[in-house]
């Protein structure tokens, strides 16, 4: 059986949760986010290339560069790329539409249009390092990065590629922030609502019996059919189904898991459903809530995976429960 080893990690992490200074939050009920701060992409990207990249691409390419440095040897040939993003290049679309309004539909800048596709970050990574395997950008709300990791892992065990750059990228934008605030999804205290996060995390996964950080051992997906199109569902059984499926895929049992890296993001009702699912399946188990540190959407969920890989736990289940009902779980082992 082919094992999917994580042999390199690169992260452009958000700073601790603090007041948003990137845009005006007056009139909004939320004020805070976990933003990337003091980030200098010139450290990672040549100026000529950087000019062609939006913030999302800069985060992603910088994280990929850090991962490649961490890898420390020649990259395997024909690598795949699978990147998760929840909202993608919303800011670029907004910037484009501003130009569209000011200058007219015929005179908006083509460079902004080229960067308005959600797979621009993955494309830049492929071009920068000549990665000619599959190149997909996967998007499934809060589960985007885990869903991307699942596809890349399936391709490594299938033998389509020997290795892949996997991860996620997200940017906190005024547009998304204000809409989430408007519908009451944000809450600075996380007592009933989330705090937004951003950043990028890239991991090099490859077929290998040894791993620097750990293995992606199994995945499970399901959907809570009680969920509406844009809210969380109420059925813990659907979450148990995905958790159990990821354990079966990893050929591990419930008792093998030392900790659950939970999806919990502060949305009270959704967190309670997940907590009930964990209780039903595991009884007592250590539960780690990374989103209290990074916020929701940090690297589209990839930071949750990175934390699990860098923890001292032996076997970890990473859970991701999305608005709209989508659920992806991953098992990380040593």
């Amino acid at each position: 059986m082919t094992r999917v080893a994580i042999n390199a990690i690169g992260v452009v992490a958000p700073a601790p949760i603090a007041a948003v200074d990137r845009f005006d939050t007056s009139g909004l009920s939320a004020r805070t986010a976990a933003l990337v701060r003091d980030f200098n992409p010139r450290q990672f990207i040549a100026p000529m290339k950087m000019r062609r990249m939006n913030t999302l691409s800069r985060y992603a390419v910088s994280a990929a560069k850090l991962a490649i440095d961490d890898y420390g040897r020649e990259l395997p040939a024909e690598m795949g790329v699978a990147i998760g993003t929840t909202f993608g290049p919303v800011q670029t679309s907004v910037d484009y539409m501003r130009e569209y309004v000011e200058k007219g539909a015929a005179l908006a800048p083509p460079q902004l249009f080229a960067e308005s596709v959600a797979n621009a970050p993955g494309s830049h990574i492929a071009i920068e390092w000549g990665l000619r395997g599959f190149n997909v950008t996967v998007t499934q709300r809060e589960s985007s990065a885990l869903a991307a990791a699942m596809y890349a892992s399936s391709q490594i065990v299938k033998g389509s590629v020997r290795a892949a750059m996997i991860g996620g990228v997200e940017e906190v934008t005024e547009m998304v922030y204000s809409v989430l605030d408007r519908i009451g999804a944000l809450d600075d205290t996380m007592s009933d609502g989330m705090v937004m996060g951003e950043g990028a995390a890239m991991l090099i996964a490859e077929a290998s019996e040894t791993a620097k950080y750990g293995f992606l051992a199994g995945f499970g997906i399901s959907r809570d059919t009680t969920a509406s199109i844009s809210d969380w569902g109420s059925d813990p059984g659907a979450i148990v189904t995905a958790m159990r499926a990821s354990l079966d895929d990893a050929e591990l049992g419930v008792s093998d898991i030392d900790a659950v890296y939970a999806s919990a993001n502060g949305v009270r009702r959704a967190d309670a459903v997940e907590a009930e699912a964990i209780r039903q399946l595991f009884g007592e188990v250590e539960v780690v809530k990374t989103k209290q540190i990074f916020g929701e959407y940090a690297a589209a969920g990839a930071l949750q995976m990175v934390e699990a890989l860098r923890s001292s736990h032996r076997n970890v289940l990473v859970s991701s429960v999305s608005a709209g009902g989508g659920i992806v779980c991953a098992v990380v082992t040593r």
Partner: protein
Amino acid sequence: MRKPDPNVRIAVTGAGIICAIGRNKAEVWRSIVESRDGIAKLTRFPGETFPTDIAAQVVDDLTPMLPMSRRDAKRMSRSDLLAVIAAREAIEQAGEASALPRGRAIVATGTSTGGLLEGEDYFFARLVRGRRRAPASRVLQQPTSAPSDAVARVFGLGGGVVSNATACASAGASIGMAADYLRSRHADVAVAGGSDALCRLTYSGFNVLQAVDPAPCSPFAAERKGITLGEGAAYLVLERWDDAVARGATILAELRGYGATCDAHHPTAPAEDGRGAEAAMRAALGADSVDYVNAHGTGTLLNDSAETKAIAAAVGMTIPVSSSKSYFGHTLGASGAVEAVITVMALREQIAPPTLRLGQPASDCTLDYIPHTPRPMPMKSALSNTFGFGGSNVSLLFALPERA
């Protein structure tokens, strides 16, 4: 992680489509055999001025075709609604023999812009009314994952949702991904396809890139000047072969294989030698042969030239090739699914759709492109190509089901 089992055969048991030439398979195929395109004056964005003014649009009012209440529909984007319409046709066809196990069905959708049309409406409303007053209900369906969520919600599918936003290669990637999850038994049924509604940003963006033909697109032709923008959605229902047989389902076709590669060349332009596309086609083919290629065939100078080289290298110069985009334009993130459904119908009907408006092929387009009129011909298998911004290439190989 369980390996996608290469010995598991993937059956296509349902197909649904909506695009500028029809609201379902029957209407679409009638247009195909009558060589009737769906390209007309752009009417979706009254008051906007673009350098070109044609498009391949679906009718404005989709509500008569929807299986849910107006109230539910009101919360969804146009891309969501197109997805639901196409998915319904596919799911109903697959469920004719016996009920689909919906609890274990995943939805895999490709889209390039999702609900961006509604995002633009919100953007304009904010300019006028400010961010505290602009109505935000529909912009919630802007994320590119929304069409998958909408389809799963409307049809009660519980296997999981996963979406691809890999520009114009999105739907092809979703279909391949879904097939692998069936092979690895991460799901038992897949509703896999794509959806994209026309939006202002895309219409304007391809124009500023000067990639839009002011006249209806003419793929592979000497006078080709670019794409015609379209919209639409299509889905396939995929199952493991043995499950489909056990259920008594009619197997429309077999998804034999797929290939996914990247040019790693340029953010928007394809590699001129077509090497990435060729590699995707070779991966899809494996040891199989092919009788017809449904090309990506956008009508841009670069694509049609590079794709011609790729096809010639992968399958030779004699296999007939055509671009269905000459009928319904470039449906962007949906194109991989829309053209997959066309490819499956071509196999079933044993008629290869033509490339319309192909007067004089370009000097760098040297294949048999089936000009003007459909060509009845024996076909056992056919490739469907779909490439996108970022250099992503996906090729799908479909075959007629072997009779036992």
